[in-house]
């Protein structure tokens, strides 16, 4: 994280921040009897503005395709329970705890985390198939870093 990032802060969590503002905006738009050109709303340091194209009617989506029904199920991520170094095998050169495509049981060890010379096993908190291993052996991870993407057993 560098000093150049605070811009990002202002965009943080916009749904929650602007919930009240946007709701009010929506109310205003609803009450307008004819198509609007522009609505702007400012509350303290928050400013929202909506503007429609000059020919709003023509820009409306004409019979667009429905969203695909074949959307893939979301992965379940196994995340680092602490800051540390992530090892994917019990010791250097040994066979990894799991490989992509493997089935794992709930409670099965999938990695090991080292922090301050303390080794902590990382276990799957549910059964599933390993879709992706997201870190390489020896990666330094933070608390919450996703390590393994699992397709939960009950979803496949």
């Amino acid at each position, binding site marked *: 994280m560098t000093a150049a990032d605070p811009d990002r802060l202002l965009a*943080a969590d916009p749904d*929650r921040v602007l919930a009240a*503002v946007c709701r009010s905006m929506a109310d205003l738009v609803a009450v307008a009897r004819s198509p609007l050109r522009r609505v702007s709303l400012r509350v*303290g340091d*928050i400013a929202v503005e909506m503007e429609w194209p000059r020919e709003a009617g023509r820009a409306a989506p004409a019979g667009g395709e429905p969203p695909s029904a074949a959307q893939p199920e979301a992965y379940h991520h196994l995340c680092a329970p602490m800051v540390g170094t992530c090892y994917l095998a019990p010791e250097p050169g040994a066979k990894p705890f799991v490989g992509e495509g493997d089935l794992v049981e709930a409670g099965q060890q999938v990695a090991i985390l080292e922090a301050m010379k303390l080794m902590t096993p990382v276990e799957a908190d549910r059964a599933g198939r390993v879709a992706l291993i997201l870190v390489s052996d020896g990666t330094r991870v933070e608390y919450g870093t996703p390590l393994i993407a699992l397709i939960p057993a009950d979803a496949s």
Partner: protein
Amino acid sequence: MTAHGMFRTVLVANRGEIALRIVRACREMGIRSVAVHSTADRDSSAVSAADEAVCIGPEPARDSYLNIPAIMEAASRTGADAIHPGYGFLSEDPDFAEVCDKEGVVFIGPPASVLARLGDKSSARALMADAGLPLLPGSMAPLASMEAAKRAAGRIGYPLMIKAVAGGGGRGMRIAREPGELAAAYTEARGEAQALFGDGRVYLERFLPSARHIEVQILCDGHGNAVSLGERDCTVQRRRQKLIEEGPAPGLPSEVLEEIRRAAVHGARAAGYVGAGTVEFLLAPDGRFSFMEVNARIQVEHPVTEMLTGVDLVQEQIRIAAGHPLEFGQDQVHPRGAVIECRVNAEDPARGFAPAPGVLACFSPPAGPFVRVDTHAFPGLRVSPAYDPLLAKVIVWAPDRARAIGRMRRALAEFRVSGPGVATTTGFLRRVLDDPSFRDATHSTSLVDELLKADSGD
């Protein structure tokens, strides 16, 4: 360390405004900074401002900001050669200071042994009594039993206060105004002390219902130099939580204040203190002062002293920890004018100062001449109920106290904070500023209670 004997990288083991404050100090000194943070503080100002950031745990402080192994692991991986603990959290934890020592990382604060001696209020009292500082009548050793408490209370006299040996910062205390209240107060204080500090030991001290809270900022380097940077008056408190701090202490005889400042430096020397610290005193209406405790860390209200003296206390902490001698002596400390600090908390005075966190839809702090605002907040911030409710410290300077009050009223009137469910103490702070006894500086630590009592009365 660099060739100039300065740290290359300082890890900031804290959050909120003080973490941002430390990151800024590092940047001005050319030191790389690392912000460690919980998942809730991923987008915090300190994280944005720091050179590097490491997520060390989930929102609860015990799993993140109090998680020593996680912090040490973050220090190790980022190559930090020093850790600044800020205030609260691990800042006065001797175990943490010791772990830092062992890992070869400099703890920016007093040595672990000094933290241990001053953190135990009982041993701190004994130390200061030996050094000749005046103390309130009280039990020197922790109380062994209710019977011992009763005997000590009979000797000391009422009203008195039962305090946690491991306490500090106004927590783990109960008042007994008369013998009939002793048993309940003793039991409650023990229970709270056990719950808060994991140490149920308590001791007794005479309670002064209307005193002034005077504290002295000291700086001690590792070469035997110790200076006082003047006192702060923190008399405006609610349940021993400070709301308004100011300096110099108004309406008090200068010879008493001079004596208090000297006592503070003497006490710090006696404790073998190193770093920035605060020695707290109670000043009775009769002009007699008593040592209360040492806050062995940077303090929330340190900007008061900074604006009075021009000394950057956080930078001084860092220089001292790097082994540098103080660059100035007592005769080069010249406080100027009057400074007031108001703590703006996300609390609702109308509901007994209950925490009132939430998302800040609007956050627009005051600015302009002689106004400083230390804050980590910004529009869109989610103020977490898991942490301290401090939103911002508004600090103003003026040539004299009356003008400082006028300036603070202007600054607080400019402050805009709002959001669903969010309330702040701003309005209440303005009431205190307008109170005649505060304006005359004839107020005591009971001022806030009196104001609140007037509200609930008819």
